[in-house]
């Protein structure tokens, strides 16, 4: 979409010369260990050595050729990237489709004052460009040129926000001290420590691995990392074997040490990844900047938030903390999450940790026309309690019967005089009955929905809680489901489908609705969605 503004003048650029250094370093890293192995193996596998060297030489040649032929330019509303010596490649990315320009600056990058630029687009399968690396100033120039030409939200009637002027005036995104736009939220170090301590374990492992790898990856080649882990595992098993006399003590100490080090790692990971997290807003754009060693910055137009999730993990809920997550429309999000194996480098969170009480005041920044928080949530059918508790009851009866039968048989077979547990132990699983009732009552009491004029909210969870907010304009389809058990209780589950449900764990859904209410609600949601516009790319 060409603009009439003078700022639309073509921008033309090349990669920073440091690209060559990073290329060589990367190459040395990837060939170092195969090379050492080949040398150790001696003359017998000389062909292996030559293969490695040949491969390294070829890829060096390719990279150098790529560097010298790589150019990018902005013209006619498109970002055009060209490279290739023999087979020339050209990629055109319409600026209107650009969702996000993400900047990432590792430790080594900082030494050279360069940054890696990833350009994400809406839809399509990975029409994504990566400029690695540009100087910080050049990255800024590119970002501003891109956003100056993205029509932004002007088409929405917000003509009074001069997107061009604000974009041109925006300072370097990585200089967080100055920041961009108005600061919406700043995560203090204390909250990051708490977040680290309360992180669930999978998340912890991911954060630690990601934070740790960001550092380690820059220094150590992949092969030696693997060797290190193997050696650590061997050492551990040998240590356990030698400890001998008191395995329980050893295991206890090991568990305590494991927990303590997990906590330390978790806190360190949380700080590494999110240090100095700042969420800012500049007109329609949300900006995030964070990271201790590897710094990241990204921009997200708030209209592209498809679903917002307020997540309260149990431990964090006890401390009154929450996490804000958002799904955005974009094929790149899916690709990225698969690439990183689930660790998104924090791309999935709007705010990694903040007091739950501060959330309502922040929400209008994401959804300007959001209705106020509902005073009463519409509850689901009370039959939900029975529906949810019954499986637990059946399970406990089954376990109890099984255990009793086993105990009875053992008693018959074993000669008297040996101390045997009483048959009453067979009733132990029955304790599950009240537990499952209490948990289903708790989850029933918090399960609810609220339908506003423009937004639909659901909330759920007994110990860990989650609230989903979806603008009706983003509803793609409404799905009602009934299992055979649901039909016995005349209940149904309602699920909202929207684009890019990647980071919020499946988007809003609400179960145990009476069938008639579920149908009525689904009809209403679909009709309202039909009435309200959905816009894919802006």
């Amino acid at each position, binding site marked *: 979409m060409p603009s009439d503004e003078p700022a639309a003048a073509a921008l033309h650029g090349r990669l920073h010369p440091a690209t060559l250094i990073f290329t060589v370093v990367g190459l040395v890293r990837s060939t170092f260990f195969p090379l050492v192995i080949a040398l150790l193996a001696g003359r017998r596998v000389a062909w292996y050595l030559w293969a490695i060297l040949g491969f390294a030489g070829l890829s060096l040649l390719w990279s150098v050729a790529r560097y010298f032929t790589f150019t990018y330019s902005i013209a006619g509303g498109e970002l055009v990237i060209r490279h290739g010596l023999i087979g020339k490649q050209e990629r055109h990315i319409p600026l209107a489709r650009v969702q996000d320009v993400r900047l990432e600056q590792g430790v080594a990058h900082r030494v050279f004052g360069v940054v890696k630029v990833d350009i994400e687009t809406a839809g399509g399968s990975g029409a994504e460009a990566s400029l690695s690396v540009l100087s910080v100033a050049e990255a800024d120039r590119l970002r501003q040129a891109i956003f100056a030409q993205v029509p932004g939200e002007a088409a929405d009637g917000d003509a009074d926000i001069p997107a061009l002027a604000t974009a041109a005036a925006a300072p370097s995104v990585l200089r967080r001290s100055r920041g961009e736009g108005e600061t919406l939220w700043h995560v203090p170090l204390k909250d990051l420590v708490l977040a680290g301590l309360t992180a669930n374990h999978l998340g912890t492992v991911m954060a630690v691995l990601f934070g740790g790898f960001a550092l380690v990856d820059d220094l150590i080649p992949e092969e030696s990392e693997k060797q290190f882990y193997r050696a650590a595992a061997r050492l551990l098993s040998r240590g356990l074997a030698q400890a001998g006399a008191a395995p329980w003590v050893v295991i206890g100490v090991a568990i305590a040490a494991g927990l303590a080090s997990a906590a330390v790692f978790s806190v360190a990971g949380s700080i590494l990844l999110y240090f100095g997290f700042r969420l800012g807003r500049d007109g329609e754009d949300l900006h995030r900047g964070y990271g201790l060693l590897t710094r990241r910055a990204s921009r997200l137009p708030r209209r592209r938030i498809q679903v917002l999730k307020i997540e309260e993990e149990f431990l964090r809920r006890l401390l009154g903390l929450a996490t804000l997550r958002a799904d955005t429309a974009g094929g790149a999000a899916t690709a990225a999450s698969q690439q990183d194996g689930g660790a998104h480098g924090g791309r999935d969170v709007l705010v990694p940790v903040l007091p739950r009480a501060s959330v309502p005041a922040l929400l209008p920044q994401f959804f300007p*026309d959001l209705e106020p928080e509902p005073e009463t949530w519409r509850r689901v059918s009370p039959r939900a309690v029975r529906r949810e508790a019954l499986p637990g009851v059946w399970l406990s009866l089954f376990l109890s019967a099984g255990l009793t039968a086993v105990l009875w048989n053992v008693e018959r077979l074993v000669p008297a005089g040996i101390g045997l547990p009483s048959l009453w132990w067979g009733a132990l699983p029955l304790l599950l009955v009240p537990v499952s009732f209490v948990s289903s009552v708790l989850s029933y009491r918090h399960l609810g929905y609220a339908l506003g004029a423009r937004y639909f909210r659901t909330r759920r969870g007994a110990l860990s809680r989650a609230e989903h907010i979806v603008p009706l304009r983003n509803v793609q389809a409404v799905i009602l489901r009934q299992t055979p058990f649901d039909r016995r209780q005349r209940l149904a589950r309602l699920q909202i489908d929207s684009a890019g449900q990647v980071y919020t764990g499946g988007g809003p859904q609400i179960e145990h609705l009476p069938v008639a209410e579920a149908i*009525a609600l689904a009809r209403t949601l679909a009709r309202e969605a039909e009435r309200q516009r*959905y816009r894919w790319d802006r």
Partner: protein
Amino acid sequence: METPSPAEIESAAHTTPTRLADGRPPAFTPLDPRVVSLWRLDNAVGYGILLLLSGAGAFFLGRAIGPVAWPWLAVAWGALALWSAFMTMRHPTLAYAASGYLLEERVLLIRRGVWWQTIQFLPLSRLQHVDLNRGPFERRYGLASLVLHTAGTHAASLQIPGLDADEAVRLRDQLVATGAGGDDAV
């Protein structure tokens, strides 16, 4: 983006019970009855191949283990055969009774599932594109199926199987025309 006045927000917010549309079960249009024969043929072929393969597998397994295994293998294979017979003879009629579609004020409803039942509500302006498929078996019965694509995640493509071929073309054109009638051609 229009910013509503506080009063408007107040009045519109969370009037959930009164704002809900009616909850009467929708009156679905059934699929073409010929689809029962199509599904029977589909399942006969599919389960026939499965029975042959599993029969051969059971035969070799039985020979390898010895005579002890024969009764067990026979029972397992018999159960599979019974299930196949059910899926071929009875299930298509049940599935036919449980399937249907309905256009309700620019919202398309699609229903399916015998035991695990689903109704999908698709606002037609969300339609990205429509595929019309005619497989070899479908052609034999003069049938076609529609695949509706949205930008969603879980329901990114919705299917209406078992439509009369001419009806499928007509329905597709109607859906596309209705969908494009909105102001947000994506």
